[in-house]
């Protein structure tokens, strides 16, 4: 098991945002965590990445306990993070943004190859290499952040809401790229997603999180009809609300 989040509890002050949740990710897997607003999805990623520290439970990455480590130490251990909301370095140009991704690495020749690959993957970034990242469109910024995370040569990439604030065709493109990366490079992914429909399409396994607890987990293949996912997502039986009112 590559990443093992075991029964963690996270508090914001006295408020428990996560109450004993467990998530595991195997090497080469795509795992999605879905859930409504305020369910604790982002909190889960923040607890893994070291921004928040769990008050209880353990986070094990590749056999090492990483709970309590600083964000940069977690990043150095091989978990690259794409935080929510397209965190590009606005005054740095595209090339410099990408170079930040490579700064933890020593393998110069490989960096060069990876850099070229990222530019091939996102041709628009190659075109705008000299432009400040703040001038890119939302979709381009999301590509840039993913490209930067890729250049850290991660063992696992965690992404918080890749679809947030993007036009649907751009979201398609982002997911295409993510699936392609898994197919061609065996990238392991842990994705937080609000849309269970997207998650069911992309993931191997998914977890439904609500009110800081895991409501449901399973293989995406077994959950394709969506009924159990929706029930776990909203916490009530289907039919109580009118079909169609609920937009996924």
């Amino acid at each position, binding site marked *: 098991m590559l990443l093992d989040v075991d029964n963690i509890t996270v508090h914001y002050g006295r408020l428990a945002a996560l109450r004993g949740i467990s998530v595991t990710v195997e090497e080469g897997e795509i795992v999605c965590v879905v859930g409504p607003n305020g369910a604790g999805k982002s909190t889960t990623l923040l607890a893994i990445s070291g921004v928040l520290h769990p008050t209880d439970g353990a986070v094990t990455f590749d056999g090492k306990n990483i709970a309590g480590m600083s964000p*940069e130490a977690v990043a150095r251990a091989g978990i690259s993070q794409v935080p929510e909301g397209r965190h590009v370095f606005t*005054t740095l140009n595209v090339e410099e943004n990408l*170079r*930040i991704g490579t700064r933890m690495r020593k393998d110069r020749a490989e960096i*060069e190859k990876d*850099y070229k690959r990222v530019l091939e993957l996102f041709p628009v970034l190659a075109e705008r290499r000299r432009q400040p990242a703040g001038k890119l469109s939302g979709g381009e910024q999301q590509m840039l952040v993913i490209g*930067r995370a890729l250049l850290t040569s991660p063992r696992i990439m965690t992404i918080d809401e890749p679809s947030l604030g993007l036009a649907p065709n751009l979201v398609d493109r982002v997911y295409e790229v993510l699936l392609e990366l898994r197919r061609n490079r065996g990238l392991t992914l842990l994705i937080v997603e609000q849309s269970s429909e997207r998650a069911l399409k992309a993931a191997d396994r998914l977890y439904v999180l609500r009110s800081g607890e895991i409501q449901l987990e399973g293989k995406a293949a077994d959950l394709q009809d969506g009924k159990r996912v929706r029930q776990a997502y909203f916490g009530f039986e289907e039919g109580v609300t009118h079909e169609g009112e609920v937009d996924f």
Partner: protein
Amino acid sequence: MIEANTPLLRKVRYFWPLIVLCLGLLIIVAIVDSTGDIILAQTLVEGLVRIVIVVAIYMFVGNSGIISFGHIGFVLIGAYATAWQTCCPYTREMFMPGLPTYLLNNSHHFVLAIFLGGVLAAVVALIAGFAIMRLTGIAASIGTFAFMMVFYSAYLRWSTWTSGASSVIGLPTTTTPWVGYAYAVVTITAAFLFTRSKWGLALRSSRDDEVAAKASGVNVFGQRLLAFVISAFFCGMAGGLFGHFLGMLTVDSFYLGMTFITLSMLVVGGMQSLAGAVIGVVVISVVIDVLRRLETGIGGFSIPSSSAEVGVGLILLLILILRSSGITGNAEIYWPFKRDVSSEGALRRQS
């Protein structure tokens, strides 16, 4: 037409922002030197020392995005540390009787003394920064201010080493225009190289987005501390230069007045650009000089005294309101000719 992609030309293009600044200053120094005007030369040297200070502050403030109100504390430390080594060999014991025997009996060469002054400032920055750099945003700024207060008050009372509230007089006035120019060029070059280094890049990334910088593995605290120490080193050297320009030192001259002037210069020029730091000093120095001359009166016309400070304050306000990114708009002076945009060249430059 020059061949567009020779290695030499590429180097020139890379270092262009640096070359322009150094050549520009060279022209100014050469012109002033040739006029032989002593008053003008004084203004020039003061301006060059301020360039060292403001560019040193830029190294930290411009790249980290944390405003420092405390860097004049490092100038103070460097100034007195230099004086301990060079000042007035016959009266040193009178001004600063508390100095250790070695310092009372030995003098160092000006260049070595200034260097050691910078080193002392850097060591102090390392210790102080270890606490202050853990803070972010306005808390860090206030922290640097508190740091300066501590050193100002301590040096004011520490009369056996600093002569306290009275002056230390008799430093050799070795800071000539050309010496000032040499230190300005060294500092500007260091700032240029630091900003473009991988450490400078990491620091600038944390300025834009601290969360993402950490997520990319940047040790934000460590990068800030490094920049703080380097910039303190150059501020300390500037202190030594300043003492050897005036020929005397008072603790009071390294306090709020100098903090205000130097930060104004940085803000007016453009806080996030090296060109801004240099141009800010040049512009504000010229304005101050013109107003000072008007204060003393030209051809029967004069303006009230202290108009220079008022003028600087007004310019600062105008810049903040009308053009908050400064005269340069936070940009550097780029290669004015068409740049080669082939991806080939760019990829090779990557390695």
